[in-house]
């Protein structure tokens, strides 16, 4: 009855790298003193990896052809040394399903890294079966390269996906699918996989950092098919991939030339600090030759064509998920050729009101009247767009010669365009009520 314990060493050597291992017991006699015969199983026919990027989770689905004998068959699945979540392991016949019935799943006391399915077959039958489970340690991420044209008006956008395998297992000839989206997970798969997990991940991440550096591009490009599923997108990599343990592999997801890009010189202190930043904007839509799929979160690196097939580095930003038709804004930093200067040109205090505290009089309310001047200069040889956001505090009145837009209760925005070499001044006045003068 406990013969698998005895034979375990044998099994392990036969499939020394191939963890988890699958074994079948054929019950020879239905008597109480049942003797079980161990049947070594063929290698997996196919392996499919569905890798998530929002959580440390990969769904592995493997198929094998098995022969079942009439009656109850016991199928052992063990996963010592891996990061498999035991609660996720599932068995499903792909064909001849009507002849097979999973009676129960037993988790023996002797091992917490093994389970045994009892499968009833109504006759001797061969069937393709699928075994699926969750593992942790395999992850994927997206990266983008934007090659800006010399005049910054367009770019060539290349997207990559990189798969990293630190699961402790090598996956050979696996079909790889990547899931874009944030699924809800109520327990970490890593936690469910068992205690040794934390230390292993620590080590694995160390190796991964090194492996990521040596990530190589494939010699032939593979198609990545993108499909929507519920709230997610699934990227299916064409063909199969072999990803040894601790390796990372980067694949090109798409290349798009001539994506129009807009530069807006933006002043927005809460977002970008008190400086004028060049914000590169494009949209993930058809007008921008994109919009076929959302762009998963990842690092976008911008380079500019410096002429003579040389590149200049513009900047990089980690973006969140970009839905179809959504806008992307990338901060390309400060440009010394486009400047802004703000000065306060006057300050007056008025409407002072006083109160008495015994015989002492003290100030309890006042208004300030301030005038500010913004000076913008474009030293570039082409027209540029400006967006100036002014965030004000307290109980204020805002007054401006140039029309502005109210963004929220405290923010005013100017949008303007300066021709090449042009200069513009904007003057605005702010009255602020303080102390008992304030209504707010």
């Amino acid at each position: 009855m406990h013969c698998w314990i005895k034979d375990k060493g044998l099994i392990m050597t036969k499939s020394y790298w191939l963890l988890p291992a699958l074994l079948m017991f054929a019950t020879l006699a239905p008597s109480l003193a049942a003797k079980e015969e161990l049947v070594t199983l063929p290698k997996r026919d196919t392996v499919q990896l569905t890798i998530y990027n929002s959580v440390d989770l990969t769904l592995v689905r493997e198929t094998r052809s098995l022969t079942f004998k009439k009656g109850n068959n016991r199928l052992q699945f063990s996963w010592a040394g891996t990061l498999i979540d035991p609660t996720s392991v599932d068995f499903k016949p792909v064909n001849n399903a009507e002849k097979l019935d999973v009676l129960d799943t037993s988790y023996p006391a002797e091992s917490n890294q093994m389970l045994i399915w009892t499968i009833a077959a109504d006759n001797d039958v061969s069937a393709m079966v699928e075994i699926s489970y969750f593992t942790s340690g395999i992850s994927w991420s997206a990266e983008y390269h934007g090659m800006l044209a010399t005049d910054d008006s367009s770019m060539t956008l290349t997207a990559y996906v990189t798969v990293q395998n630190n699961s402790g297992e090598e996956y050979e000839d696996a079909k790889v699918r990547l899931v874009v989206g944030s699924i809800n997970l109520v327990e970490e798969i890593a936690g469910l996989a068992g205690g040794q997990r934390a230390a292993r991940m620590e080590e694995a991440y160390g190796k991964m950092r090194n492996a990521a550096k040596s990530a190589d591009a494939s010699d032939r490009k593979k198609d990545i098919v993108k499909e929507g599923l519920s709230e997610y997108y699934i990227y299916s990599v064409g063909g199969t991939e072999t990803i040894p343990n601790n390796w990372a592999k980067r694949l090109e997801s798409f290349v798009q030339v001539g994506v129009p890009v807009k530069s807006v010189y933006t002043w927005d202190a809460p977002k970008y600090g008190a400086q004028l930043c060049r914000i590169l904007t494009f949209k993930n839509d058809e007008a921008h030759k994109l919009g076929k799929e959302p762009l998963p979160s990842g690092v976008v690196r911008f380079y500019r064509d410096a002429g003579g097939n040389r590149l200049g580095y513009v900047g990089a930003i980690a973006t969140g998920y970009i839905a179809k038709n959504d806008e992307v804004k990338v901060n390309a930093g400060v440009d010394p050729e486009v400047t802004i200067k703000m000065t306060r040109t006057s300050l007056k205090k008025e409407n002072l009101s006083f109160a008495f505290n015994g015989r002492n009089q003290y100030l309890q309310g006042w208004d300030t009247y301030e005038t500010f001047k913004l000076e913008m200069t474009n030293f570039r040889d082409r027209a540029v767009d400006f967006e100036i956001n002014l965030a004000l505090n307290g109980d204020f009145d805002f007054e401006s010669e140039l029309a502005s837009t109210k963004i929220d209760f405290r923010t005013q925005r100017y949008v303007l365009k300066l021709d090449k070499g042009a200069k513009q001044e904007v003057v605005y006045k702010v009255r602020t009520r303080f102390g008992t003068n304030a209504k707010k």
Partner: protein
Amino acid sequence: MNKRLLLTLAFAAGVGSMIGILNPNPVEARIKLATLPDREAVVVRFDNPNVVMVEEERTISLQKGVNNVDFSWAGTNIDKGSIIFRPADPAAKVEILSTSYPPGEAALTWQIAATEPASIKFRLSYLMANIQRETDYRMLVSKDEQTCTFKHYFKIRNWSGGRFATADFVTRDGKKFEKGLENGEAKRVMVNSWDKVKLTKEYVYDITRNYEGKVMTDYVLKNAKDIGLGAIPLEYGKVRIYQDDGNGTTAFTGEDWGRFTPIGDDMRLNIGIAQDIKIEMKKMTNDVQNRRGNVYDTDEVDEYEIKNFKDNESVVTLVLRVDGEWEMKNDSANFESFERIDNETIKFKVKAPAKGTPIKLKFHYQRKNVW
């Protein structure tokens, strides 16, 4: 108590179903029972959410007069006060006179009086510690997200110290399955599977559920006959959700804890973030009004901009909250259709047009008597 004797008996009892050791004294019969295998018709019940009850049958040969029957449960954890021992046939002519508990032993002795020599079937019930149970579900959602297959699994782990050569395990909702269970072993069994269960998908924006202002995707299952469920109250348990990907396989699309759902109630499962719907809030007005000493009112306008980047129009449920005394102004969007769930909370549904066309919602309210 002679433990060696007990074990010997236990072994012997595994072969025959009846046990009985007769004392030479014709009146005082002494019979020993042990928890180990010699039991019949064992039932393990999970009616109580915290405690497991084991019920078994024992056939005992009784002599005329007073019989002493020993029962021991060394190595297992049985609540001895919970032991109920009774003839299976209430009309049987036997009477249990007393129960004695020897010092320092997991054992007891019943004094049973019989009017005539007979083999009597007794039923023995007791609460047993360290048998764990767990419910989980698998949901396989159709490609169009209209229906699902809902599978209900029950998992038992036996740490009790005893083994069940074979027993009927009965879940709280009365589902019975027969299995053997070794000490230390766990078994997971599919107890129910419902096909073509209708489900509802909802997009919910509720700041108390997700502080980053994300829109969540929920599946709602009503535990009712008309949607394909409603057979039993659904126990609390983890629900793992898979979806048919249209290519012959499935993808895992999330999991959530399903709360205990009585018949007629809803089970709401969050599968993840609806990443293609974005909601941004801006405060457009934030004025103080009607100041009286340290008390004032406020006039506030929050503007919600909703962008649905999907290819189809979607309905989003917004759940908004304001603390204290407040009222909504009737120039708010959806003023006619909002539902005030409680003093602090309003809820309404918004149709968000496809492909990122933004819509703006004005939420205008006055807070009153703030200090």
